[in-house]
């Protein structure tokens, strides 16, 4: 638990952070993923640029049918935000299930998705609802869809020196949605996490958004399951079809370990899809 030597700088602004970051530097947000990795010497940056006190990165705003969540907004702020609760309650639920209160008070959504731990909670919501990520660098700004942002295991579309300035989430206040997870008993990260957002028309599901994480190397949007649910009355046959389709959706990305093998996670993704649907329906 003894990191290698590094320099530390605190940035006051986005521009300042972008100007300060060096070739082997890293942004420091909540530090809840980065510092453990440094202490284990799995990560050895020579410079940390602390972005956790940049006000412009911490806000949560609702406007034009979309939520804009600052790159350094904490899980606790998001979980407690009325705006998030209204526009995308599943995201508030997911952020509220991250670690414990201390972790949520420090950990940030930007840090969480930049780190791209496959067992993280928020990414399944972000891919399900079609969120996007705004990224700034010395060269300017770009926006990437959540599905393209998550590339592979601990791998994202971020380049060195790029800063997540905001996460943009569509306003789905007319949907019924939920995020449910099977927590790993040791870490309480997700063995499986499933987000479902349903557009209901009476008893019929107009369309559905489905995202899965934990069981997969990265959060996966499940088009097959979405199609199986769309137009159905969410009856048993539709649910079974959706579970079967989900298994194909995530098959390519499935992951597991000795304690929780792929077969188990794949089966649980189906179980938690059904549980998410029933939670979403309320």
């Amino acid at each position, binding site marked *: 638990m*003894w990191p290698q030597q590094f320099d530390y700088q605190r940035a006051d602004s986005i521009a300042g952070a972008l100007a300060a970051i060096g070739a082997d530097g890293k942004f420091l947000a909540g530090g809840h993923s980065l510092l453990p990795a440094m202490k284990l010497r799995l990560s050895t940056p020579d410079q940390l640029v602390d972005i956790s006190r940049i006000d412009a990165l911490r806000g949560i705003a609702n406007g034009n049918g979309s939520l804009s969540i600052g790159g350094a907004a904490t899980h606790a702020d998001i979980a407690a935000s009325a705006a998030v609760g209204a526009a995308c309650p599943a995201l508030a639920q997911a952020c509220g299930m991250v670690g414990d209160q201390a972790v949520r008070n420090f950990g940030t959504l930007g840090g969480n998705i930049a780190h791209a731990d496959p067992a993280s909670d928020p990414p399944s919501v972000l891919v399900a609802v079609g969120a996007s990520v705004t990224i700034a660098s010395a060269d300017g700004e770009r926006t990437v869809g959540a599905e393209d942002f998550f590339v592979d295991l601990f791998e994202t579309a971020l380049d060195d020196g790029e800063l997540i300035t905001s996460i943009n989430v569509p306003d789905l206040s007319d949907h019924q949605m939920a995020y449910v997870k099977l927590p790993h*008993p*040791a*870490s309480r990260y997700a063995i499986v996490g499933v987000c479902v957002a349903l557009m209901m028309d009476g008893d019929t599901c107009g369309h559905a958004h489905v995202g899965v994480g934990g069981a997969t190397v990265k959060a996966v949007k499940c088009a097959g399951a979405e199609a199986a649910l769309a137009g159905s009355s969410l009856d048993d046959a539709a649910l079974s079809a959706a579970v079967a389709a989900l298994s194909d959706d995530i098959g390519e990305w499935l992951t597991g370990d*000795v*304690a*929780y093998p792929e077969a*188990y996670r794949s089966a649980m993704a189906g179980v938690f899809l059904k549980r998410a649907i029933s939670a979403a329906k309320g």
Partner: protein
Amino acid sequence: MSTRIFGSGIKRREDPRLITGEARYTDDIKLQGALHMAVVRSPYAHAKILSIDSSAAAGMPGVRAIFTGADIGDLAGLPTAWLIPDSDLKTPEHPALASDVARYVGDGVAIVLADSRYQAQDAADAVMVDYEELPVVVDPHEAAQAGAPQLHDDVEGNIAFRWVMGDREAADAVFEAADVVVSERILQQRLLPTAMEPRAASAQYNAATSELTLWCTTQNPHIHRFIISAVTGLPENKVRVIAPEVGGGFGSKIPCYPDEALVSWAAKKLGAPIRWAETRSENYLTTIHGRDHVQFVDMAASNDGKILGVRATVYAGMGAYLSTAAPGIPTILHGLLYVGPYTIDNVFCESIGVMTNATPTDAYRGAGRPEATFLLERMVDKVAGALDMDPVALRRQNLIPPFADGHEVATTLIYDSGDYEAAFDKALAMAGYDDFRAQQAQALQAGRYLGIGVTTYTEMCGLGPSQVAGAVGFQGGLWESATVRVTPTGKVQALIGASPHGQGSETTLAQLISSELGFPVDDIEVIHGDTTETPMGWGTYGSRTTPVTGAALAQASRKLKEKARALAAHLMEANPDDIEYADGSFSVKGSPDQAQSIQEVALMAHLAWNMPEGMDPGFEESQFYDPPNFVYPFGTHIAIVEVDPVTGSIDLQRYIAVDDCGPQINPEIVAGQIHGGVVQGVAQALCEGVIYDDSGQLLTGTMLDYCLPKADMFPNFELGETVTPSPHHPVGVKGVGETGTIASTPTVYNAVLDALAPLGVAQIDMPLTAAKVWQAIQNANGGN
């Protein structure tokens, strides 16, 4: 005896300093000019060390010295101190640093001493070690097979010992003739003790006086003094070992480790204080692990439910070296428990200690007894299943009837006292056992899987008579000593050789002295953990501090009381036979206004102005106490669980524990020990377990993967008690530090298997993770 303080649940006096962070642990002790030690550890589980190049590291900032195994020739290897007899025991060399072969991931190969901990770690990372990987074996059963990779030239077939209890042929004959025999392969998985404070050691050598002081995380500073003296060659009277606050141990701080020897050696070699504290990752790699048995167990019974015999072959993983007490754990502390609270006439145990490419194992809370209680309770449930009998009825039928003073069982132990059925009945009533069976049947109709597990146990603790220790090869005594010292102003210092580290003994023992002598409990301080300040003792483990040290203190207190009585009589010019004692006051029979308080007597003893003929001055007494027998607490634990068959998740809904540890000095502290013990034992059943991969890498090397129990996994515990005093103990108490761990693992395991019985699941290796339970259900019913 005054009963007011004895039996009162006063708050633990240790807690304010622990809770506010004011306690001073080993690593809080800053030593002027200290160098920091980092250990270069093998990343391979088995590898030849071809060469070590420390030239680059030696030139790094702050680095003062680097030593390898070749440099420490004058530091002897770590000894094994439990040499079990008649077992063909081999004790392979355990050098403080491996120089030819590294035998587990974490085996030390070099040390770096530097000005700061950071610099030491930087340089340790820069020490270049050239390894040649060797084949690896981590499973103890596999390691004992022909053709397995060999760890030590002098341990043929990796078999360090083969300990046999009972007569194999006689046992086999009983099994052959029995109506029913049930068998199971039981995996007692490896566990990580995970004390809150990892290990640490700091040493300072004073060349002028040739004295070494070692501060370290130990449960037994006197044993550490002895071993450090032996490995460094420093005379024992020139070694002082101090255990400052020690943040838990669960057995893992009994052994003497290479790191403690190395800081001691380096402090003398370099003439500078040396500090070392392990990281949690090092703790998981190099601090001893617990359990690690592969057991092949049979139980025989008659058709009418009489248990006839228990027979087991145990492959006990020792890891790469034999840790300090390791050979005694799966043998003496295990096999002797094979009848538990039951009348079972035939027992046989063959315990095979096997070297593996894994972290050494040693005593972990319960140490051998949980592994015995589990197999017994598991097999009793299996017999019940085979006979289609209620497991509660089967247990009741086989319980040993009540006895108050000695009962010999087939394993040759003489239990001190027991009334098993009383605790059993109480627990069953608390659980509402009969009603539960009806609810369970109803729930099943609704597709819900409820289960109940009932464990009756007794265990052997309060280690123990020194003669027995000697007979079973323990390289030490197991008595304790204590001094009760009263100052002229009537304040008490109790000096003990044992070394509590979280048990609340400073409180309990003060209550015991207070109840014996009448000093207010707040005037009594219990001092421990320093070989120079305290009298000799063998340490805190095996639930022995209250039974053994407590007895020494009770007897020392009684000596003082007699002295006080005689002095009070003299001062009041009365006949000693006419002196009455109550609550710290001595009065003359018939004239109650004439009285001397214990404090007044203590003052007069110190002043010695007016002593009776032949009485020495001062007010202090010491006592060496060697217990005549072990103590045998017992009880019944019951768990109720619900299993979600869809996910395999287990919900522990109720936990009932009725324990009998004799009279309780402090019921709150007893409850705390039971709570903690139950939590640790349940965790073994449900979630804790070391996983190594085939190359010997520890996959559960952090708390992200190694599942420690969490508060939200547990219901409120329902505790009950019965009180059966130990006949041989001055105040009748028995140990209670390990009972929770011993009883709870089979209780919860059996409850889960009871819930799964309708699904056709008969066995799952612990821990019962959701994935394993789910897989077992799939296997049992083909996923339908």
